[in-house]
């Protein structure tokens, strides 16, 4: 399967399975800067947020190819619709599936912390088994990220959710906070799994498969070959930095990142605000319907009409709740992840990395940047399309509710009118 996966790229340089590709100089190729081939843009299967969708992909390829999932028979969860927007020339080649779930609280004498269950399913040969289940805490994720950054200093490593509590929350282990974090951690691991280079990182594999004691002992080891390679690359890169001139391309990229960061932050704020407003609207609506029921108690002739209005309002209320949850499932996490990405990209050392990407003739490095941009565009596009779909669905539901009310009133009226006739 791995051989297949690389088929669309330049012939492998025969390096060990762990880093069989010229795109990751720190990962496998002993000679940074040489790719040996022109790296084609690796088309990625789009990341799926929902656990169920992960499993869906695992079991049934056909569903991914279905471009017409609007039929009511198809499960039209907003995120299953992601599946229809794919690169058509790439069949599904994903061979590593990861889910993060079941947060659990652990209390010791020193501290309280949360662990998350990580389930890995794979068909890769280098894994001892096809299924793994481990528990990891946030610290472990931090360690993994650190190792990846060490080993692949020129690649864009996915961001982790914030270390500390966003202001406004009362306690560290608030349910919403944990859920948001869980989703983000899930995303983090899947991003790595989908990255052509990072997916083969050794520490990543250990993270996914090692038992708790194995992981601790591994952590204690000094930096390995890979990270020493990374250090070399960094040293080389920083020594080269001083004499660089500023090509246009670099300025453009710098510009892009700055503006992107601005825009994505604004979009994040706006999206959070929309969620908040929708929540407050929902809270008020909950009170609105019952008043009509109360009223119906004193109006004999209007009982039915008032009760019907109340039930319509309640149904619209439920629809708005669904819309809200759609927003928090699809749009908010995606936008927020890119906020974190943009924060990372704005950092001086990251900008340095990007400079390297541009300056070095190494197309492979540039490809990582292009890959990131492509992903970003797809993800944003999908997230907003989803949001639009949620809104359409919401309005369609409300429309149906009120239209049926109107019909029933008209029917009643016709009935009454015919009764009046002698």
């Amino acid at each position, binding site marked *: 399967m791995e051989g297949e996966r690389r088929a669309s790229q330049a012939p492998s340089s025969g390096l060990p399975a762990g880093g069989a590709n010229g795109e990751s100089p720190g990962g496998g190729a002993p000679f940074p800067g040489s790719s040996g081939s022109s790296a084609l843009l690796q088309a990625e299967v789009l990341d799926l947020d929902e656990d169920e969708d992960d499993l869906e992909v695992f079991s049934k390829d056909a569903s991914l190819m279905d471009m017409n999932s609007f039929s009511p028979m198809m499960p039209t969860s907003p995120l299953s619709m992601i599946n229809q927007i794919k690169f058509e020339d790439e069949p599904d080649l994903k061979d590593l599936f990861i889910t993060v779930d079941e947060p659990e609280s652990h209390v010791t004498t020193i501290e309280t912390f949360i662990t998350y269950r990580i389930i890995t399913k794979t068909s890769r040969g280098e894994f001892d088994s096809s299924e793994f289940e481990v528990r990891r805490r946030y610290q472990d994720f931090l360690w993994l990220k650190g190792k990846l950054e060490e080993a692949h200093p020129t690649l864009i490593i996915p961001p982790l959710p914030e270390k500390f509590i966003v202001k406004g929350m009362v306690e560290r282990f608030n349910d919403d906070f944990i859920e948001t974090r869980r989703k983000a951690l899930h995303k983090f691991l899947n991003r790595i799994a989908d990255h052509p280079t990072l997916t083969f990182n050794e520490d990543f594999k250990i993270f996914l498969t090692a038992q708790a004691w194995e992981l601790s002992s591994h952590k204690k080891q000094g930096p390995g070959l890979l990270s020493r390679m990374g250090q070399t690359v960094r040293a080389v890169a920083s020594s080269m930095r001083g004499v660089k001139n500023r090509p246009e391309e670099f300025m453009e990229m710098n510009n892009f990142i700055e503006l992107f960061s601005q*825009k994505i932050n604004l979009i994040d704020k706006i999206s959070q605000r929309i969620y908040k*407003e929708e929540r407050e609207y929902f809270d008020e609506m909950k009170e609105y319907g019952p008043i*009509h029921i109360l009223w119906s108690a004193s109006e004999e002739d*209007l009982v039915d009409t008032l009760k019907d209005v109340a039930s319509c309002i309640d149904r619209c209320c439920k629809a708005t709740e669904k819309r809200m949850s759609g927003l928090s499932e699809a749009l908010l996490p995606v936008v927020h992840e890119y906020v974190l990405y943009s924060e990372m990209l704005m950092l001086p050392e990251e900008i340095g990395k990007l400079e390297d990407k541009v300056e070095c003739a190494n197309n492979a490095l540039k490809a990582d940047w292009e890959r990131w941009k492509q992903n970003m565009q797809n993800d944003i*596009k999908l997230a907003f399309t989803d949001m*639009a779909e949620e809104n*359409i669905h919401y309005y369609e539901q409300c*429309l149906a509710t009120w239209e049926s009310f109107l019909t029933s009133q008209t029917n009643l009226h016709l009935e009454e009118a015919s009764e009046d006739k002698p």
Partner: protein
Amino acid sequence: MEQAPPDPERQLQPAPLEPLGSPDAGLGAAVGKEAEGAGEESSGVDTKIEISVSEAEKRTGRNAMNMQETYTAYLIETRSVEHTDGQSVLTDSLWRRYSEFELLRSYLLVYYPHIVVPPLPEKRAEFVWHKLSADNMDPDFVERRRIGLENFLLRIASHPILCRDKIFYLFLTQEGNWKETVNETGFQLKADSRLKALNATFRVKNPDKRFTDLKHYSDELQSVISHLLRVRARVADRLYGVYKVHGNYGRVFSEWSAIEKEMGDGLQSAGHHMDVYASSIDDILEDEEHYADQLKEYLFYAEALRAVCRKHELMQYDLEMAAQDLASKKQQCEELVTGTVRTFSLKGMTTKLFGQETPEQREARIKVLEEQINEGEQQLKSKNLEGREFVKNAWADIERFKEQKNRDLKEALISYAVMQISMCKKGIQVWTNAKECFSKM
């Protein structure tokens, strides 16, 4: 225009409408919703009257204390419509301010206590949500008030009894001196004092149960509609927030599209749709405000219902007092005649203290009492009759009111559904467009 001042002894009679040069004895107004209630008096010419409050104007003038003030004046136009060819001719047009409407209503309340008198639109903006100004000079408020005042006049014009009132007719036709005319009726003096009414409410022993029930109903109606309007205002506020925040997407998208080569066009047009979405809420909520006004009218009608109940209680209490008084006089008389003293009387006391009265004195007293008793019996009889007349007439109007209320509220609720449907359709369209733009990015 002359009229004999109403006889204070009799039950208050409304000022009768006298024919003023036209043979028709009343205003047959066939406007708005109440066409069937209108007593269309046919004159030689088969005409209908149309009333409208067509304009509002800000004015400045001097008030009673010679201080400058700003107020709004409303133009009332009356048209008569030829039945045959449907042509309408403007017969009267004059300007009135809100306080004159209030005066008209106060007058009607005094002279038609058995009628559920239509309420005026609110004096000050209540149940506001943040966008609506609570300022009486705000153009939106003035516009809604104009509609409310027109509705008030139409309600009166289509009421079978109220439409015949002369003061109402003069309100529509006599610009100058109308206030003086109203005041000359002396209606303020005839109004029942609030204190008297309150007293009656607490002390009446046997009010008609239907009125007691009606009072409870009107309290419930007022309470539930206020609650509904308050929550509706909050919901409107939140909905406004949701829509308007989306407008920010429009701005950001359009700025972002400048730097994004591939996504640029999609972003730009999506942004435009977000702007459309955000601005669509203004019309939606304006429509809803009219719905709120329809409910408000019935909120204020609750008070009109209570006014009728209060009048009944007052009359009933009056009757009970008169009966009690009569009974006590009869008792006194009996005691004097038979010589037994059961009831305490000052005369009796003084007699004990200062000596017996003479037979002549006693005879005189009995005679006076007998006269009073006679008078009292007459009064009681007429009060009883008036009371029953009042209950009968009031109940007839209350039944009429109930039918009107059921019709109107049902219509209002249906119109609310229609508004929601329209809002949903707009939403579907805008988001479908946006989705297309997003998917083209």
